[in-house]
């Protein structure tokens, strides 16, 4: 069975500092990996995804994540955060072999301080 572990429930960081949100998964089959973001009072929206190919994927607002198969990780990074990045971030995994389920982690609340 698949599972997703987000190692930090909350990450406080100062504006313009770098940040890494950690995500590890377990699966016996190939997977697709996602990061979703939920801004205050908004619904979840896709931030970035890994399907195949290059293991480094990027979003339009400066976030990136790297798929590491040997460590079964998909950590999310940003070199310099803004106040507007304050949100809850969810790592998710789905089967690459035709399943329908997407399994979400418990979420990491990123709090950017001025």
């Amino acid at each position, binding site marked *: 069975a698949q599972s997703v572990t987000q190692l930090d429930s909350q990450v406080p960081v100062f504006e313009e500092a770098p940040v890494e949100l950690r995500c590890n998964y377990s699966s016996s089959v190939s997977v697709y990996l996602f990061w979703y973001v939920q801004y205050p009072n908004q*619904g979840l929206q*896709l931030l970035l995804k890994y399907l195949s190919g290059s293991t480094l994927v990027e979003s339009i607002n400066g976030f990136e994540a790297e798929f590491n198969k040997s460590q079964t990780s998909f950590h999310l990074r940003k070199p310099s955060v803004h106040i507007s990045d304050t949100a809850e971030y969810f790592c998710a995994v*789905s089967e690459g072999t035709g399943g*329908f*389920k*997407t*399994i979400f982690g418990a979420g990491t609340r990123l709090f950017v301080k001025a």
Partner: protein
Amino acid sequence: GAGVSQSPRYKVAKRGQDVALRCDPISGHVSLFWYQQALGQGPEFLTYFQNEAQLDKSGLPSDRFFAERPEGSVSTLKIQRTQQEDSAVYLCASSLAEGLASYNEQFFGPGTRLTVL
């Protein structure tokens, strides 16, 4: 609007009451998912529809939970004889998936917050 909408946004029910939660997916989206999100947790899969066919309902926690999508667009999640442990945010998501659903972006609605007293 062009997004996924859900109604009601908030629902308070007395224990034992039946509730119905509605989801309007993005027009033309083939796939529709329901999730349950408890406080402080990530969304947990409940069920999946491809058009009107319910292809996976393995996440429904009990036979009190029932979902339908009779015409392949709007979906309703019904919970019978609600219990306090049913209190959660219920999320609906849709995706423009043709065939395999697992790699497609899901577009989420704002959710329905259900509180069972």
